[in-house]
């Protein structure tokens, strides 16, 4: 196995940190992602990540650790998305898109100002594509803690979320505060997204959020099985991605590693496509195939 596991892999401290943080990120993102995909909120999940970018670049600008910037903006955006809460899905998508655009504009500004004031280059790349191998060990406890918190919140809410997605009216009639649950879920999503943004970048945290969850939903039937499968896929993809990224240092062009985010994304997409071998696509019931359907709002 020498060609797969290059020398020094497990002895390397950055790799150990990467694996630890990566595992937490993968599990949290996957479990949160199951609900994100089910509720049809992939765009919102992706947008939160991009908005978190603004926070990250802002933090970079003022010299803070980027994670806090990601987190603050992510949570704020989550609450704002819930408040905007337009009834029809298309209206909500447009509103999300506009908020996203404004946030990206701000990010552009922050990154520009940051590059003027400091000599560190590559800030754009790092903020967007992550830096899992250069995570400072001092931030690791905070990262793990936030991942665990997000995970606990989602697991605690899982039944209520499913009930709300099934029928908001039934849930409301049974005393569930549908709006509050929606906000709590979005906050957990924001935390998870901030976390994965630090690890593999804001723009690509969507891969770990959506990919394993969408894959699991195609093969697992019940809720518990879906969450566990998603987490397993996420972790597998992350470990393999870290492994390959480390190995790629020895691949052409020598001395230059390929970005870990590339591997993770590629593996995520491959995993998803593999399910189509096992279960060929069935014809969807919607009459207008290929056109985004106007769906009845399900869940907050």
């Amino acid at each position: 196995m020498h060609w797969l596991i290059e020398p020094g892999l497990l002895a390397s401290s950055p790799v150990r940190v990467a694996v630890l943080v990566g595992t937490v990120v993968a599990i949290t993102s996957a479990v949160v992602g199951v609900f994100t995909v089910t509720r049809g909120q992939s765009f919102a999940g992706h947008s939160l990540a991009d908005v978190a970018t603004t926070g990250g670049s802002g933090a970079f600008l003022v010299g803070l650790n980027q994670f806090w910037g990601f987190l603050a903006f992510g949570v704020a955006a989550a609450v704002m998305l819930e408040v905007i809460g337009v009834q029809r899905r298309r209206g909500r998508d447009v509103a999300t898109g506009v908020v996203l655009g404004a946030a990206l504009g701000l990010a552009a500004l922050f990154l520009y100002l940051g590059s003027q004031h400091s000599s560190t280059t590559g800030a754009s790349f790092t903020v967007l594509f992550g830096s899992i191998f250069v995570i400072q060990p001092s931030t690791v406890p905070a990262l793990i803690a936030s991942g665990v918190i997000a995970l606990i919140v989602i697991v605690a809410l899982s039944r209520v979320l499913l009930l709300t997605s099934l029928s908001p009216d039934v849930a409301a009639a049974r005393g569930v505060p549908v709006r509050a649950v929606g906000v709590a879920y979005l906050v957990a999503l924001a935390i998870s997204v901030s976390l994965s943004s630090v690890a593999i970048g804001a723009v690509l945290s969507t891969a770990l959020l959506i990919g394993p969850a969408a894959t699991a939903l195609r093969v697992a039937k019940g809720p518990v099985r879906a969450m566990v499968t998603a987490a397993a896929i996420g972790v597998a993809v992350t470990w393999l991605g870290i492994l390959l990224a480390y190995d790629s240092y020895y691949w052409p062009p020598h001395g230059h590693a390929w970005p870990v985010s590339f591997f993770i994304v590629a593996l995520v997409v491959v995993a998803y496509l593999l399910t189509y071998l096992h279960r060929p696509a069935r014809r969807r019931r919607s009459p207008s195939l290929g056109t985004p359907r106007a769906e009845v709002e399900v869940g907050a």
Partner: protein
Amino acid sequence: MSELPTSSGDLLRLDGITVRLSGREVLHDVSFAIRPGEFTGLIGPNGAGKTTILRVILGLLAPSAGTVTVAGQASGSHRRGGLLGLGRPIGRGDGRGGSVVGYVPQKLLIEPDMPLRVRDVVALGIDGNKLGVPFPSRARRELVAETLRAVGADSFADKRVGELSGGEQQRVMIAHALISRPRLLLLDEPLANLDIRSAQGIVAVLAKLAREQQIAVLISAHDMNPLAPVMDRIVYVAAGRAAVGGADEVLRTDVLSQLYGQHVDVLHVHGRVVIVAGDDGEDAGSPHAGDDLAGQADPVYGSGVA
């Protein structure tokens, strides 16, 4: 407003419910009561206010006037309280966390990849409104299995709920509502999109439940004929007003014409009831319609019709 005969045995009681939405009066002075074990049809054309009535009963909509009483307790502020507001369901039940009122919504639009099997949906009926993860136990599993059998959904218990037909989905949602041992089951247009066979199947299941478990059923429909054999009483809703009573009391040309505010004919065809709009221009004030009711007290209406 004419007073309903007071009876403390009423399971559900609406008194003078009026609802105004966006400046429009959607329901006017609706009153009726339901006793334990009764099978009541909430009948009326689309847009008449049936769903509004159901939402008021469930506490999802606050009426502009009037009161709702469920099992002796005024409904309304039931949702406050409890940890994080995940509080008591409608009408405190038997203390086990069960609720007095079970609700089966109209057809749900469920994505095929929703990670819920039929048995998961039914299990959510036990305690889906609580935080945390349930402890798997044999008692739970058996309760779910038993409820599935009662509605005839055990054969597809492991299918994804998004892959079911309309009729199958209705049974699942009935089981979901049933498992918390409600004393009143509310169903919102369950038969609307079903073929005749499936509709008859659902009605049979409901009738059996009402008989065997003494569960009162309030079922809304725009076509009353599938329900005719099993209905005890009708609440007929049109133009925001209601006429309450037995089928032969309510389904009459004079009664419904007054309700609609225009002449309609109630025809009995081969044992079925058909309601047909009359000629334009004739209204309840015309010489022929409403003759019998002029000057008489109204035992049937709440009040205020024309």
